[in-house]
């Protein structure tokens, strides 16, 4: 294999490129990114960058020297706009065509938007800097969507002295993701800090003055942040013949077609550990999957299934939330250590008869590690959680 193209120059694409070199690949390595910036980290955008605690340079994932050592054919500020599988070429927005023997797709996601102009989204460094410059004491920030991104931005907004209103269509924020009890615990933390949380509301439009609800009420705002989830960047693959359905559809090796792999937020692959296909928008998965895709592309005779225990964290006020496994669609949540009210706890998630996930707040690493292990080994609920009392049915 003499020509490998990695499309997407964020965490997953960078991890793939680095792994290719570490594994001894010394051919042409093209890294394509639609943003004009060298690879940078996104999780701090809604935290340290938005709060002004960190300068943008701190988000650089690698130094200029580290990047130079990769000997990349680096194409930044240019998006990929087409793929021809039969010809093994990628078309770029600048009119060039890049041939490949192997391809890794890591084009990520973009924010879902409301059909209105003037609202912020939070995905790129540019987005975060623009919003940061508009926040400050007394500014009225309305956030549409109380998922993890919206909640983190709400916490930062309060720290900066903004009046923050969170609008959420569900009765309890995050309940579908982490369960009702944990969702209510997180909700209380925001209420205590003075966030005006309004659940069960539907947003009709963003206007010049704020947010118009479906019942006609206007929620006034100086700035509006729309944080209602993301969509995978797959349009450039239309007509390529790749299977696309909420992400690039891959097998358990992260392969989408012969010598074409996908990694990171854009990849929907079959995770044998959980026996289901999934698409994970977490920072750790981007790195792990980028590495896995690169290894499988190079070592086609000795491929390994990609079967990680997904992991994510969220920082809100003084709470660090850490979660392992695949929580979506869980059947039961049980407190297995600590106390929700004290915000020091581990809860375990049951899917079928096994431990499928765990979420911890304020617990030491050793308390968490055993639950990660239980998930990784597919431990049965009866064995791992028997002494605990169900928190919710």
């Amino acid at each position, binding site marked *: 294999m003499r020509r490998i193209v990695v499309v997407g120059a964020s*965490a997953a694409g960078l*991890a793939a490129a*680095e*792994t290719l070199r*570490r594994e001894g690949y010394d051919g042409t390595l093209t890294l394509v990114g639609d943003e004009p910036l060298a690879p940078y*980290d996104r*999780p701090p955008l809604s935290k340290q960058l938005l709060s002004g605690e960190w300068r943008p340079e*701190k988000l*650089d*994932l*690698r130094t200029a020297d*580290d990047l130079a050592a990769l000997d990349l054919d680096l194409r930044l500020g240019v998006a990929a706009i087409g793929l021809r599988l039969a010809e093994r070429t990628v078309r770029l927005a600048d009119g060039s065509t890049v041939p490949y023997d192997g391809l890794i797709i890591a084009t990520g996601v973009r924010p879902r938007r409301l059909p209105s102009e003037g609202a912020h989204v939070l995905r790129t460094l540019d987005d975060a800097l623009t919003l940061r410059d508009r926040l400050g004491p007394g500014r009225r920030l309305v956030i549409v969507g109380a998922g993890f991104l919206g909640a983190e931005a709400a916490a930062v907004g309060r720290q900066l002295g903004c009046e923050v209103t969170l609008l959420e269509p569900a009765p309890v924020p995050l309940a579908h993701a982490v369960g009702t009890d944990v969702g209510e615990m997180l909700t209380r933390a925001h209420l205590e800090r003075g966030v005006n949380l309004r659940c069960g509301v539907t947003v009709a439009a963003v206007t010049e003055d704020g947010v118009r609800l479906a019942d006609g009420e206007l929620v006034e705002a100086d700035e509006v942040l729309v944080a209602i989830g993301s969509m995978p960047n797959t349009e450039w693959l239309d007509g390529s013949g790749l299977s696309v359905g909420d992400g690039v559809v891959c097998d358990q090796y992260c392969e989408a077609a012969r010598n074409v792999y996908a990694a990171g937020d854009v990849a929907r692959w079959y995770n044998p550990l959980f026996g289901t296909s999934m698409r994970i928008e977490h*920072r*750790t998965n981007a*790195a*792990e999957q980028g*590495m896995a895709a690169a290894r499988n592309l190079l070592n086609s005779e000795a491929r390994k299934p990609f079967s990680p225990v997904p*992991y994510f*964290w969220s*920082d809100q006020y003084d709470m*660090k939330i*850490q979660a392992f496994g695949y929580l979506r669609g869980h059947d039961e949540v049980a407190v297995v250590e600590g106390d929700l009210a004290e915000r020091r706890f581990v809860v375990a998630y049951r899917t079928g008869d096994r431990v499928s996930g765990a979420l911890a707040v304020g617990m*030491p*690493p050793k308390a*968490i*590690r055993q639950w990660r292990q239980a998930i990784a080994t597919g431990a049965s609920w009866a064995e791992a959680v028997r002494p605990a009392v169900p928190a919710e049915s």
Partner: protein
Amino acid sequence: MKVELEADKCVASGQCVLVAMDVFDQDDDGIAILLKQEIGDDLLDDVKEAVAVCPAAAIRLVEQ
């Protein structure tokens, strides 16, 4: 080779401990701790893996 850790970037994921437990540990808040600063060839691959999986780009390997 020397391992460098930017502790203020650490997000307490513990990924480094999973792949290189001879070199990294975590304090009670989960923040990574270096057990060794200088490492030999025997641990080099593990630390390279830790650099690669660290979700905060908080670990670097530096030639001495």
